[in-house]
């Protein structure tokens, strides 16, 4: 079995605009590997292409070019052309549980659908299986015949997680599962996710814009900016030694609640500027328009990913040899 459960190779996803030959370059040459049993956090601002990666892996879009390998198997196509076992092993939890659950179905109906589709339970066994799923996310049996509208945001998201867990996936994609929720509710969801992940040894691709959440959750963190990965590192290393100017800018912008945290923020860089349009990506390094440390080369030449330490790579000219 390959070590990487998911391997993304030079993935590109362009969307056409109304003008000819102009594209929204949502994902532009992304290489990413997800190890077995790992939580990989993909962090970036809105419009950086995080969700496009998730949806392309899920098969909601087919890639413009590049390859997605799941356990060594090429799945660079849309869902309709994927074999059932792959669909069973890949599940996703969306951002807004208010719209990702069918308001016309009760919780039992919502949770039994994946079981029926993948023939995972006998008809007389289904209810028991659904109750097990609810217990997994610490919801009681009472919820079986409730409708999503009767549930709070946090409970809805737990149902969405239970639905993704129904097929016993090997890889779970979490697309900002807690960004619509309050912190007190987020804590519960995140703790449930951490417990399930370590109990079942799933791999998770966790997409978020919240770096402090990743500090407490992910094994590795990847930073995305305008369709490209700027820095990838193991979590500890990432927060102790952020290298890319963009990473430092993100870290220094986080509002924190204690003095200990304050000392962890790089103070060299303050945020300015906004993310440019993904239709007109700046030439050279795509971050140079907001970078305070940009050199001449940054305006003309796109930096490659440079290995700095074990598993730590960064795309920035500041760290190239010459």
């Amino acid at each position, binding site marked *: 079995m390959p070590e990487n459960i998911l391997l993304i190779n030079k993935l590109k996803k362009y969307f056409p605009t109304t003008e000819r030959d102009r594209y929204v370059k949502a994902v532009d040459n992304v290489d990413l590997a997800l190890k077995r049993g790992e939580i990989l956090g993909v962090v970036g601002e809105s419009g950086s292409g995080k969700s496009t990666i998730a949806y392309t892996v899920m098969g909601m879009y087919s890639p413009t070019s590049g390859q997605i390998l799941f356990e060594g198997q090429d799945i660079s196509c849309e869902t309709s052309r994927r074999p059932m076992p792959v669909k069973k092993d890949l599940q996703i939890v969306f951002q807004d549980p208010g719209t990702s659950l069918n308001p016309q179905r009760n919780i039992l109906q919502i949770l039994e659908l994946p079981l029926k589709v993948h023939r995972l339970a006998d008809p007389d066994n289904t209810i028991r299986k659904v109750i097990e799923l609810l217990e997994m996310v610490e919801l009681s049996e009472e919820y079986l015949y409730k409708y999503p509208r009767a549930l709070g945001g946090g409970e809805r998201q737990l149902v969405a997680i239970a639905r993704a867990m129904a097929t016993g996936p090997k890889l779970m994609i979490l697309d900002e599962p807690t960004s619509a929720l309050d912190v007190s509710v987020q804590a519960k969801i995140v*703790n449930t996710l951490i417990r399930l992940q370590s109990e079942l040894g799933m791999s998770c691709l966790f997409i978020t*814009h919240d770096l402090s959440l990743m500090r407490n959750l992910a094994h590795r963190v990847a930073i995305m900016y305008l369709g490209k990965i700027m820095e990838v590192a193991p979590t500890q290393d990432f927060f102790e030694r952020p290298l890319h100017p963009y990473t430092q800018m*993100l870290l220094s912008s986080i*509002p924190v609640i204690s003095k200990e945290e304050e000392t962890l*923020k790089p103070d060299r860089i303050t945020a300015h500027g906004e993310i440019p349009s993904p239709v007109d990506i700046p030439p050279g390094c795509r971050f140079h328009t907001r970078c305070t440390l940009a050199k001449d080369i940054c305006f003309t030449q796109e930096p490659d990913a440079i290995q700095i330490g074990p598993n730590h790579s960064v795309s920035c000219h500041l760290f190239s040899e010459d």
Partner: protein
Amino acid sequence: MANTILNVDGLHVGYRVYGGTLKVLDGIRLVMDAGEKIAVVGETGCGKTTTMKSIMGILPRQAVIRKGQINFKGRNLLTPGTEARGMRTIRPKGVSMVFQDPIAALNPVFTVGQQLSDVIKYSRGQTKQLSKQSVRDAAIEVLKLSALPDPERILTNYPFQLSGGMRQRVCIAMALSTAGDLLIADEPTTNLDVTIQDQVLRLIRNLVEEQGMSLALVTHSLGVARQMTDRIYIMYAGTMVEVAPTEGLFDKPFHPYTKGLLGSVPKLTGEGIGLGIPGRIPDYLKPPAGCRFYPRCEEALPECKDNKPELYDVGGGHRVACFLYR
């Protein structure tokens, strides 16, 4: 006190709905000194926005102000009204507000210039006739203050042509153009990315300090509140549960709700995430008779069920509405 600018006392606000009245605000007390920056922090649905809208006098029609007082610069804004409709509010002069969602706050069919000029004409033109040119100059000036590049072009833009951060800056410019004594910012950065949030918050703070205004910031992010303000009000289910100077609150939180909230925030130090607060906000149709946090509180005493705690002083300007600290 001479320099108290805003004094809200015992404010009760409800919403008439099918089947009764949602008793949202339950005796809100909020005092602000001139030039002070405060934050009102709480979860979704705990009445933060309702409080601010009551002060602005822009509550929706189904809202009823049952009792209470709002004093702004020594003038009572509430006048007795009918039994059913509740009290009426006089809209205060010198208070402006920045809303959460700039796309909803700006009119999509008018240019930024038209909308901004309307505000300026309305607020400054009441005393004297303004020429077109002077309105335009004033608009450009406030856009510049809000750190918007190329203000002449932005005046001719429609809101959809601007990015989220720029739209929010336009809203800030609009609030500043009527600049007075108090700026209410209702979750001004919730829809923005962290790097943009940082810029917008710095902008608000600088402008407030330069113009000597007071700031009431509504937010659900404790981190934002810590960065921006001198004093924090923690709100839960329509009641103020804790009031403290910013430093004091983070050093030593007292109320079980505040503790739970602080424990739930993911930290950069990576010490893991707290357990959160079980349960959810009470049903406002039938709120708990005593402390509104009682059903979710792990340290609840028997008397919490039927008695409402007052704000008890625990020293250093720190006050907590909890029987544990009587």
